[in-house]
């Protein structure tokens, strides 16, 4: 089987054995769901319910705050208790707290919307928009916006990202294994919206079972091909994935649509299928709960708004004290300061490290070993950006093109001196962006 890839990248330990073999399970419904009104990139939602209102599963509780935005819905049935600022991954965020009545009553608006065959592309797009679907790999960019390219851009290819190149995470892997047909159906819906005839599903070759199942699922689909990808990080980074699947290079600073491609995540495709078939908006997702200190790591169907600590309980708790909690994968995920955070639309995983695993070693001198240059998937020279960033010389830092950095963290990973390469590059990016806005 031919294996496709990109240039550069690293091979971190995969650590998917904790959960790769575990079938999806339903998490217990939360007694209280804390649903942030902003779970996406773009404008926050406006609450359309009031404290004391009764809400049902799938009922819209937040209206999109603009075109680049996505509505949010209640994941349980019950009473709105509070609409206030609550801790989120990126600081406090206005959230709707709903107390469950335990009935899980489904809202009247949740009805089968039709079938992909009969619905028009625009109708499907409207369903996606109303269902609050966003990029579920973690980026959380509103999907309907991604599916609305400006008329002058010709899109001819859709890629489903099943690389799942982050260590530990197995959410997409399990979705492909257990719901291959739904995933393919979601892809077909996306292809219909964009009116394209070429679809790829890229899967890393560390998931041979998923490759096999998906290959079977597309057997009768002439326009959809499974692309076997080399297991390498960051294989699932958008531009690297496009390079691997199509050989097209997205220009620096441009979006994938520049080369006629739109990329979506496996979870997103599955959700699109569900929202068309059952009418249920995005109120639930698969989240991998993993890490060496978790008694029983799991792949769970989690209602949006469920707090992490409740899920930890369902995973049997910890075998030793937790030192770090990461929302997302270990390479790009965000370390958070509390376990009282809700699962949101972008929560592909929650990882638990002990103090030792969570501690970043002290940096030493850069020895110019060039490992960071050799592996950078966008061919930057992280050592120089970092060196200038650390002495606040952002003019010089900018010459080394930090804005092209995809923040995959490969440079920090390989650095033998444990230098804060990505961290200092992020600072440079922030400074340069701030300056350009002035």
């Amino acid at each position, binding site marked *: 089987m031919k294996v496709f890839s990109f240039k550069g990248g*690293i091979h*971190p*330990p995969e650590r998917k054995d904790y959960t790769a073999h575990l079938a999806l399970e339903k998490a217990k419904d939360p007694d209280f769901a804390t649903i942030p009104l902003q779970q996406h990139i773009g404008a926050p939602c406006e609450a359309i319910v009031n404290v004391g209102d009764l809400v049902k599963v799938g009922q819209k509780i937040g209206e999109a705050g603009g075109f680049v935005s996505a509505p949010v819905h209640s994941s349980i049935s019950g009473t709105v208790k509070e609409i206030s600022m609550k801790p989120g991954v990126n600081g406090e965020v206005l959230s709707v707290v709903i107390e469950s009545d335990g009935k899980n009553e489904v809202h009247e608006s949740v009805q089968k919307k039709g079938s992909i065959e009969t619905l028009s592309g625009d109708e499907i797009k409207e369903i996606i928009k109303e269902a609050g679907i966003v990029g579920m790999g973690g980026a959380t960019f509103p999907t309907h916006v991604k599916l609305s390219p400006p008329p002058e851009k010709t899109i001819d290819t859709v890629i489903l990202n099943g690389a799942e190149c982050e*260590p530990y995470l197995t959410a997409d892997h399990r979705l492909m294994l257990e719901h291959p047909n739904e995933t393919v159906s979601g892809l077909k819906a996306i292809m219909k919206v964009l009116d394209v005839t070429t679809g790829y599903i890229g899967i890393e070759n560390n998931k041979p079972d998923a490759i096999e199942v998906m290959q079977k699922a597309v057997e009768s689909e002439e326009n959809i091909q499974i692309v076997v990808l080399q297991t390498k990080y960051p294989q699932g980074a958008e*531009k690297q994935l496009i390079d691997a699947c199509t050989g097209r*290079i*997205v*220009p*620096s*600073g*441009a979006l994938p649509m520049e080369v006629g491609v739109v990329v979506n995540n496996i979870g997103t495709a599955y959700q699109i299928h569900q929202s068309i078939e059952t009418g249920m908006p995005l109120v639930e997702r698969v989240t991998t709960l993993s890490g060496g200190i978790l008694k029983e790591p799991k792949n769970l169907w989690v209602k949006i708004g469920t707090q992490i600590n409740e899920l930890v309980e369902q995973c049997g708790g910890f075998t030793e*004290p*937790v*030192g*770090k*909690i*990461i929302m997302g994968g*270990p*390479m*790009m*995920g*965000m*370390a*958070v*300061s*509390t*376990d009282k955070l809700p699962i949101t639309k972008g929560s592909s995983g929650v990882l638990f*490290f002990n*103090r030792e695993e*969570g*501690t*970043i*070693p002290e940096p*030493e*001198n*850069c*020895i*110019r*070993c*060039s490992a960071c*240059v050799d592996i950078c*998937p*966008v*061919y*930057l*020279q992280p*050592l120089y950006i970092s060196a200038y960033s650390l002495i606040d010389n952002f003019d010089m830092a900018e010459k*080394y*093109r930090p804005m*092209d950095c995809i*923040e995959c*963290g490969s440079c*920090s*990973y*390989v650095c*033998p*001196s444990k230098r*804060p390469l*990505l*961290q200092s590059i992020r600072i440079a990016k922030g400074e340069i962006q701030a300056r350009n806005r002035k």
Partner: protein
Amino acid sequence: MSDRLIVSSSPHLREDTSIQKIMFDVAIALIPATIASIYFFKAPAAMILLISIISCLVTEIVVQKIRRVPVTIHDGSALVTGMLLALNLPATVPLWLPVLGSVFAIGIVKQLFGGVGQNFMNPALAARIMLTISYADRMTGWVEPGVDAVSTATPLTYVKDFTAIQQGAPSFVDLLIGNVSGSMGETSALLLIIGGIYLVYRNVITVKIPGVYILTVAIATLLYSGFDIQYMTFHLLSGSLMIGAIYMATDYASTPVTPRGRIYFALGCGILTATIRLFGGYAEGVGFSILLMNTMVPLIDRYTAPKVFGEVKKQNA
């Protein structure tokens, strides 16, 4: 949740590497050649090695104390410099010479510029050249291997100013195993190559720099001698080419970081070495070549920056 959680910037995984691991790998790679140097040149070689390593470590401690920075001798870089310096000296030098060399290498070339990774020249090599220029007679006190320490010429003098190997030159076998005169560690091409293979296997170096360097010298000597393969082989196996190409032209701090830059760097080293050996006043040119190319590194890095992913040529406005 008794303890506070650690919050740090991603990534949250780090590869299990360190400066120390890399330096110890280099030290391990040098062990075969080091043992050979003691075998061939006996007790004086062992003394020089010991003195050289100890003075490098002590210099590092003293200078770092003066600079009021954390002492980092545990990272192994001073150990490697000590080994390399000793292997670059003839076995006949007085024992104060490695001390002087160590102080120069660690104190001036390395620590004065900021310590490990900040030196723009290879410290051991810079010290060798400093000593060669300052104490020319002592630094060329070549002897044949063995206890008797009979003065002799180095193998390279048998090809200097000739286009063919002269009578009396050592055999290829002797050159390979190191049964020839020369600096302590540059005698056995074979053992140096074995160490190099270990470094490549351990991902400490790639074959790129040594490969291009040696190949360039090979082509140059081949052309110069009118395609005399024996003449070329003699050049490759003699002098400091192997130790220079494998262990000193690959020094991270003083070589380019860009993939293309490393090729140009090695090419430059090869051309300069061949030029000095074939046309210059010295029989050997490896040390000068690498140091000269070391000074070119910032320039090379600047002009060989890799093309950023998706970079498009700026349209003429």
